[in-house]
């Protein structure tokens, strides 16, 4: 990607490359097909609509009381011995974590999966300050070995097939080239075990933070999350401020919706609930637990009733699994931390519309994402809202998102003004239509991006009005 490209050009370049990469398309196609059918099976015996309504209600209830719940969470965490930090920006969150690491002379950090830390580009930041951060989730480990970023929020290495992973591990870690997944997994296990033992600090994300009890919940299958939060002497959990839920009971339905929507599992292997560091008499667990609450744009989304629904997200990834666009271009084409439908409605808030103006448009608005979302986020409606924001909204809906109006074009505005002016003047309108149909052969054959993959629509010789009129007066409609 050359440095002179605008974000828009770079986006189109990535999409073009991805669509023409048969390997990427095949890898995503087969993975997404599998995930869709597993999800269907997992909900087969349930009244899914009712569950989704419950999921949405629980998350919305938490958001309704967000500031109070954050304070309650902080109070209860502190009472449990967890130290709570607040960060307005990614940068601030990185510095908080760096300071904790430095206070412990940490050289090596082991990480469980955390999308917020991806958002913060934490690994890169720590590296620059002389601290090695190693990913321990197998998918993240592979992606880190490759020097890439995750292409899916649940399955970070889904864009690679076994052969590619084998080659990568062979090259970077000296394993034998092999298509035996058990062998590759065992090799990664033994490489990472040593690192778990040596790590000075463990960093994880959080799936749900329970205000009522001051509990941090982590959902995982591998056990790396448990190791990360148990073996090193210090555990730092980092999360967006929206992840708080009110009561411990709220976690039961959300957990079920999350795992079934994500991978079609009734539950994951581990559900890890952390409510404090090692207490007197306990023989393991970290001596210190820190919670870093990251805002980074979220309190901005919070101001608007419609946009706020974005914050209900529980990061299950179902919207990407079911997205016809994501399935074809894969996660990297989006160029953002969160790809797919959730990325399209979240990233404009986190980065501003200047950098993400194409995202809300890169959708067919087919509605699949909204239909599967376990917390009923109306993604298609939010996409339309963001499209409007990108061209500045109107009197009723002034732009709210940073960078609103970035796609506004003078000539486009002028054309639409002319259009509405014409429509308010019947005589002129009729004359205009008559002229347009008569001179329709003058119509351009190419209409920018529209005709890149489609033929241009042709104006009919007679307008609908004219046809209906002719019909009403009993004449031949032709």
């Amino acid at each position, binding site marked *: 990607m050359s440095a002179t490209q605008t974000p828009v050009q770079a986006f189109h370049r990535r999409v073009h490359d991805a669509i023409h990469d048969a390997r990427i398309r095949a890898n995503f196609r087969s993975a997404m097909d599998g995930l869709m059918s597993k999800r269907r099976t997992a909900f087969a015996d349930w009244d899914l609509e009712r*569950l989704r309504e419950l999921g949405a209600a629980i998350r919305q209830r938490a958001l309704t009381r967000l500031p109070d719940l954050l304070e309650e969470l902080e109070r209860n965490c502190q009472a449990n011995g967890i130290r709570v930090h607040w960060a307005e920006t990614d940068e601030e969150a990185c510095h908080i974590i760096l300071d904790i690491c430095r206070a412990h002379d940490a050289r090596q950090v082991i990480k469980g999966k955390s999308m917020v830390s991806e958002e913060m580009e934490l690994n890169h930041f720590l590296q620059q300050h002389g601290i090695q951060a190693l990913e321990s989730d197998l998918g993240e480990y592979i992606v880190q070995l490759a020097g890439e970023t995750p292409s899916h929020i649940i399955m970070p290495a889904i864009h*690679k097939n076994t052969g590619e992973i084998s080659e990568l591990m062979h090259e970077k870690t000296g394993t034998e080239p092999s298509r035996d*997944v058990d062998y590759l*997994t065992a090799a990664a296990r033994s490489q990472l075990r040593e690192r778990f033992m040596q790590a000075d600090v463990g960093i994880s994300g959080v799936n749900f933070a329970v205000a009522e009890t001051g509990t941090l919940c982590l959902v995982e299958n591998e*056990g790396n999350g448990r*190791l990360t939060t148990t073996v090193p002497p210090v555990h730092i959990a980092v999360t967006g401020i929206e992840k708080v839920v009110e009561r411990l009971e709220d976690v039961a339905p959300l957990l079920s919706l999350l795992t079934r929507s994500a991978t079609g599992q009734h539950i994951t292997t581990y*559900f890890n609930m952390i409510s404090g560091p090692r207490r007197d008499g306990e023989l393991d667990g970290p001596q210190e637990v820190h919670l870093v609450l990251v805002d980074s744009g979220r309190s901005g989304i919070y101001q608007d009733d419609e946009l706020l629904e974005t914050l209900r997200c529980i990061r299950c990834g179902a919207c990407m699994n079911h997205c016809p666009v994501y399935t074809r271009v894969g996660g990297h084409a989006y160029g953002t931390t969160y790809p797919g439908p959730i990325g399209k409605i979240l990233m404009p808030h986190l980065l501003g519309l200047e950098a993400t103006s194409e995202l809300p448009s890169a959708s067919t608005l087919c509605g699949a994402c909204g239909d599967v979302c376990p917390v009923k986020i109306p993604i298609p409606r939010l996409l339309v809202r963001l499209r409007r924001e990108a061209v500045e909204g109107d009197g009723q809906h002034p732009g709210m998102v940073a960078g609103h109006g970035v796609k506004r074009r003078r000539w486009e505005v002028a054309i639409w003004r002319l259009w509405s002016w014409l429509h308010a003047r019947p005589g002129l309108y009729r004359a205009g239509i008559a002229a347009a149909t008569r001179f329709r052969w003058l119509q351009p054959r190419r209409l920018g991006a529209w005709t890149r993959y489609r033929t241009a629509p042709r104006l009919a010789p007679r307008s609908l009005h004219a046809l209906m009129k002719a019909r009403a007066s009993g004449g031949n409609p032709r």
Partner: protein
Amino acid sequence: MSGSRERILARLRGRRTPPPPPPASDMRPFAAHEWTQEERVERFRSAIESVHGEVHRVAHDGWITCLLERLQARGITNLLAPADTALGRELRHAWPADGPELLRYDRPIEDWKPELFHQVQAGLTAARGGIAETGSLILWPGPGEPRLASLVPPVHIAVLDADQLHTTLLEAMRAQHWARGMPTNALLISGPSKTADIEQTLAYGVHGPRELIVLVRE
């Protein structure tokens, strides 16, 4: 730090009106099922087996024999087991002299990390309860049963009393009054460690135990 806290909270509270309230949460679908104990045990068993775990239904006085058989079948020569819990005492009392060596988790992890990671072949823990619907064990590690005993050894064996099997997570939380006070670490364990990160192919024992064996006492 405090500046950020105040600014974030002020922004959240700065909304003109509070966000629209949701309808009441109808938790009924998750509350509980009317399953007999037999149904619970069988559902639990089939859920665990569907994720590559093993379940053995044993009599209260038969679990140690069953445990010994499972260990011998695998050629396991040592077992990390609790010492000062009811389960640990019962086990140690009845353990045959020629059985696998019983290890104790009696030092802080810092003092024996390499040994725990490299030498222990299996870990035994009690379960505080179970969840039939999802095939989950409830563990509350503590001084007698540290967190890593169920995670680091390649085989994890858990002992569960059948009358502690709840139908759903929500029912278990309510019956055991979790919200009144959570331990430093509470766990649901629903199978051996696994991953599908390499091309959606399942592989077991990626970071945690490769095998999970549950002895259900009834």
